[in-house]
């Protein structure tokens, strides 16, 4: 065993003070990745700063066309939210298929995005929906936020407080889950809205979530699953592992993209 101190600050400034000057401290969201990593002794933070009790970190608010989801809102709450179902049903659907019920009741949207696991579901939604990531310091467009697997634009003492998502005219997420982990082998989020047609892919890229220009162009011209058939999907830059080769994942991208479009 190794000692770790647990903190539950009530404000952002208290949380920042706990993180300041201590590079062995880590932010704790829902702990669905971090606690498992600690149990494996692959991380041993001296201090855990649980940000879930900070005022305003949880919950969902809406305007006519946009959702603001607090960073500490669990996947289960996003999945069950009437507001999310009304304004962006694809996001509620995605949240309802993350991991298993235990993961969904503890895991948080902010934690998922900050971790940027290359097979996590939420990063695909954020990128395709052109979401804005709100932190204690600034607002970051999703396009500028995800910088490769497990890498984000976040600074050391920067804390995600919320995400803002605009409602899309059409949106859907299709995932081929790895049966043991329930992470995406390949997940494709398609969206058509004010930001145009955007297609984001998780699980497949060698360096995390990415947008697919070919699929976006084809679906801009013709929003139909048959349009997806004509798109060249290269295996270059895709991941090969014991679950599947890059070529297999390239084919899954096509299949999942078609399913997602067909579901809209």
């Amino acid at each position: 065993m190794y000692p770790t101190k647990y903190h539950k600050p009530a404000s952002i400034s208290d949380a920042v003070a706990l993180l300041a000057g201590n590079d062995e401290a880590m932010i704790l969201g829902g702990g669905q990745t971090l606690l498992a990593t600690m149990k494996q002794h692959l991380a041993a933070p001296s201090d855990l700063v649980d940000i879930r009790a900070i005022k305003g970190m949880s919950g969902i608010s809406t305007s006519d066309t946009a959702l603001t989801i607090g960073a500490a809102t669990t996947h289960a709450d996003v999945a069950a939210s009437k507001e999310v179902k009304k304004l962006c049903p694809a996001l509620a659907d995605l949240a309802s298929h993350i991991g298993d019920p235990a993961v969904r009741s503890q895991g948080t949207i902010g934690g998922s995005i900050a971790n940027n696991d290359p097979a996590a579901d939420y990063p695909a939604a954020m990128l395709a929906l052109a979401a804005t990531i709100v932190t204690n310091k600034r607002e970051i467009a999703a396009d500028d936020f995800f910088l490769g697997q497990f890498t984000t634009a976040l600074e050391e003492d920067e804390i995600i407080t919320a995400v803002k998502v605009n409602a899309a005219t059409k949106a859907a997420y299709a995932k081929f889950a790895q049966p043991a982990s329930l992470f995406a082998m390949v997940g494709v989020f398609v969206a058509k809205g004010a930001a145009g047609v955007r297609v984001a892919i998780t699980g497949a890229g060698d360096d995390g979530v990415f947008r697919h220009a070919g699929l976006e162009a084809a679906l801009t011209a013709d929003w139909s699953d048959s349009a997806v058939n004509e798109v060249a999907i290269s295996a270059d830059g895709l991941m090969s592992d014991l679950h599947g080769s890059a070529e297999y994942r390239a084919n899954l991208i096509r299949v999942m993209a078609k399913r997602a479009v067909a579901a809209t």
Partner: protein
Amino acid sequence: MELTGEYRIAAPRQQVWEALNDAEVLQACIPGCQELEKTSDTEMLAKVTLKIGPVKATFGGEVELVNIDAPKSYTIQGEGKGGIAGFAKGSADVVLAEDGDDTILTYNASAEVGGKLAQLGNRLIQSTARKLAAAFFDNFHERLNQSTPEDA
């Protein structure tokens, strides 16, 4: 796992070679390197912290320069233990070729990890190793290009 890359550096080969043999330069360029102490002309002790998502492990180990053919090429190899996290080892063949006033640096690196770290799976290890190798040579390239006077 094999990693390769090529860089054009706006500096004469001798200067690039000296930098490649300078412990201070190496420490500044190795991602996450906290300490690098020379124990002989070709051997160093290093402490490197590796961060992959939630995983953070500090490796202590030895770095050695072998197959030295000054000022054209060498192999830099290292092996470190990260406690319960496991071990990592890697090597890179570095070749310097003259091209006018510039130097072309090519590398061919390999990396291997074992222990609990390896359980993270190939997907993480391979792309992380590729990123780390690229980060080292990016840093090195940037540092040398900065330290070269405009009229050199």
